[in-house]
């Protein structure tokens, strides 16, 4: 009964390919996120969706496109992969933000290696 799951856990691919990472949460949360942890261990937010609507979109190349088919899923599609895209990608979810901040629940991460 994993709360936030990601597939695949490892992804090795060639430069120029297109790949997707899937994320699902069974916590009933309204908000989902994608984070990137680079080689310097810096964990940085990329996108956030609230009830299938994009609410945070950081400065990320257009090659990255999130898609939320429903509020339990937030997938990340990456076109024309580059060497610099190699990183660990984390999905997270949280209840809807009201006046009180809510903690975020993270998935186990997907390690992407671009060769």
């Amino acid at each position, binding site marked *: 009964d994993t709360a936030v799951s990601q597939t695949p856990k490892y992804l090795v691919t060639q430069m120029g390919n297109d790949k997707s990472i899937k994320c699902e949460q069974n916590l009933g949360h309204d908000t989902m996120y994608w984070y990137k942890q680079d080689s310097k*261990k*810096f964990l940085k937010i990329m996108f*956030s969706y609230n009830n299938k609507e994009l609410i945070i979109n950081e400065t990320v190349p257009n090659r990255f496109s999130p898609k939320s088919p429903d509020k339990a899923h937030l997938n990340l599609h990456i076109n024309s992969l580059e060497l610099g895209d190699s990183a660990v990608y*984390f999905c997270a979810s949280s209840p809807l933000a009201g006046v009180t*901040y*809510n*903690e975020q*629940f993270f998935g186990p991460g997907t390690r992407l290696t671009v060769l």
Partner: protein
Amino acid sequence: DQQVKQNSPSLSVQEGRISILNCDYTNSMFDYFLWYKKYPAEGPTFLISISSIKDKNEDGRFTVFLNKSAKHLSLHIVPSQPGDSAVYFCAASEIGGYQKVTFGTGTKLQVIP
């Protein structure tokens, strides 16, 4: 521009002693601060948080202290246990930031039995 900084990449502490992890921030708009713990090959898990209207929050062995004037917070773990060995991330959220969280680079804590 790194708005949340953890200047100590690693820390070693003897079991039973106190672990103190430090964090500094630069953005005055941050109003909520969190600590996350991360084991290898797992995602970060929430540990403890503090609102900017408080200067201390305690949860069992974990206490977070906030010094707003110094833009500094710290996490105290007493007593430290070998199972506490992990990477600890300091994080902060901005007023009206819709839960956009800015993370530090983490401090790797090793508790020696």
